[in-house]
């Protein structure tokens, strides 16, 4: 099974990279660009067939390593 973990800064946590990207888009003439946030995508191959077990394992990975939950949220997608 393949999993995709998306890690984003929590709303309310300043994201200077997202802000810089937004400003660059504005400068390129994309005037209708609002708030921009940047995050990370981590793809993981998992030797597991049970969806709920896979989700539990991935949550544990996120809590222990993939995300810093002081500043980041994570989302898990299975495919």
């Amino acid at each position, binding site marked *: 099974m393949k999993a995709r973990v998306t890690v984003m800064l929590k709303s309310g946590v300043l994201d*200077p990279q997202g802000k810089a990207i937004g400003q660059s888009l504005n400068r390129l003439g994309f005037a209708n660009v609002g708030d921009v946030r940047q995050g990370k995508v981590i793809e993981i191959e998992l030797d597991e067939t049970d969806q709920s077990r896979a989700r539990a394992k991935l949550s544990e990975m996120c809590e222990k390593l993939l995300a810093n939950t002081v500043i980041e949220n994570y989302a898990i997608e299975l495919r």
Partner: protein
Amino acid sequence: MKAAVVVFPASNCDRDVHDALKRSNGTPPAMVWHQDASLPEGLDLIVLPGGFSYGDYLRCGAMAAQSPIMRDVIDRANKGTPVLGICNGFQILCETKLLPGALMRNASLKFVSRDVNMTVEGANTMFTAGYKPGQVINIPVAHGDGNYFADNETLDRLEGEGQVAFRYVEGSNPNGAARNIAGIFNERRTILGLMPHPERHSEPLHGNTDGKAIFDSLVKALS
């Protein structure tokens, strides 16, 4: 004082802090490789040095926090062994949750390497007894991720409990850190994490010795 410095792959201030400890203490600290399972027995101080452990992959300090040696570091720290984390060491202490909060990308998005003035907020600890409360000291910073962040409740608690160790002087905050915080203690004041590098201002050849008092204070308290 029996001290140990943990060396991670891509630590780059381990030798500097080794020399600073040796100057203040007379004897050199043990250098412990991150893959080791345990620290030497009977340690009075553990130092996590500056650098870019694991190339800052994933997040600064995130991989180092999972190094084999860190299990023993966390265990000793919880039992009260003093820990000093400088720059990357501070990031690692936050990643292991030994200290609250997180160090984020500098607000300017630029790596900052320069001397900054900071105020000693928490004197009268084993780390800072050699300073006067409110004393302004000049210490170098060199980091891309020193922007201290914690939620307002945590920041209020740190301030209320006197856990803010150092604060950048108003107007010289190099990274956007919340409430100008440069370094913090744990509740028991046995752990100090700070972004600036006291070991880089610890002997006359450095042109400034403002950082030396941290090492002298530790030797005095722990010998």
